């Protein structure tokens, strides 16, 4: 195992823990994006560039965006309920 691989593994472990430790969903959406990027780096140093590409686009673009949209929708529902009161 090279130094680069050890660093990538450590980053992924730290990133995954950070995602779980973040309590605010909005921040969590950002942290999960950064975690996705570190996962892509891991795949790259383990010589799987195809998987790394997929991980970059899905993990750092698609997933956080979908979470953000969902949060916006939930906030809108809360706003509607306040209007009703």
């Amino acid at each position, binding site marked *: 195992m090279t130094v680069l691989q050890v660093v990538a593994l450590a980053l992924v472990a730290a990133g995954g823990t950070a995602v779980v430790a973040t309590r605010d969903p909005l921040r969590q959406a950002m942290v999960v994006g950064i975690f996705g990027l570190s996962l892509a780096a891991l795949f790259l140093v383990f010589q799987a560039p195809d998987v790394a590409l997929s991980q970059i686009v899905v993990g750092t*673009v698609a997933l956080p965006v979908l979470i953000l949209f969902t949060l916006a929708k939930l906030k809108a529902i809360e706003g509607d309920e306040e209007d009703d009161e």
Partner: protein
Amino acid sequence: MSLAVRRRVFLVAAAGFGALIVWGLTGLPDFGVEIGHLGTRIAHAAVPERHVTAAVSAINFDYRAFDTLGEEFILFTAAAGVALLLRSGRGERERPHIDASPDRQVPETSDLVRVFGVGLIGFTLLLGLYVVFHGHLTPGGGFQGGVVLAAAVLVVYLAGEWVSAGRLRPVAAMEALEATGAAGFAALGLAGLVAGRAFFQNVLPLGRSGQLLSGGTIPLGNLTVGLEVMGALLLVFSEFLEQALLLRRRS
């Protein structure tokens, strides 16, 4: 069940689970040891047999294209499911975009975001097309390129008023894109049968390795899958956008 009992049950279960994990981990092969020989074989066979320099693409779109067909339809079904689940419900109505309501002061998109967004659209589109069309030569391919292409459209939303413009959310076109891609890939499989050979057998001339037009049906597979992935993701993004910004409970 009281807290103490629950904790005891958890500790017993966690200890058992931990023991099983450690037992399983000790049985794993050492780091970097090669298991199975298919990987090496295909890496050596991809260039002489299929004239493609990306062995992963040779597996995905030729040797095991049948698996990719299944994966493709997983995505197709998932996008259809999202569209079905996120349809406007009976108690919901579409309301004017938030920026259009007269009593609301919404800060405009900053010039910086706009300039970077407009600059990024071209780069992202080019990168997506490059990744799709060079799938058989370099890492990447239809799946990755398709997502990048969908992201390019997302940048349009970020840089401008996608939702309020409305015309930039052509759901029919996205559906057509997705269906064309999915059907096109299935047709590639049938092409093998029509030529009197196996399903998904490479029936086109293979060309010279390393050139853009090489690998027979593999680049076509990348292209059709790219269209399908782009259409499916755009459809999912669009449904989420509509839910987040346009639909409200009928009051």
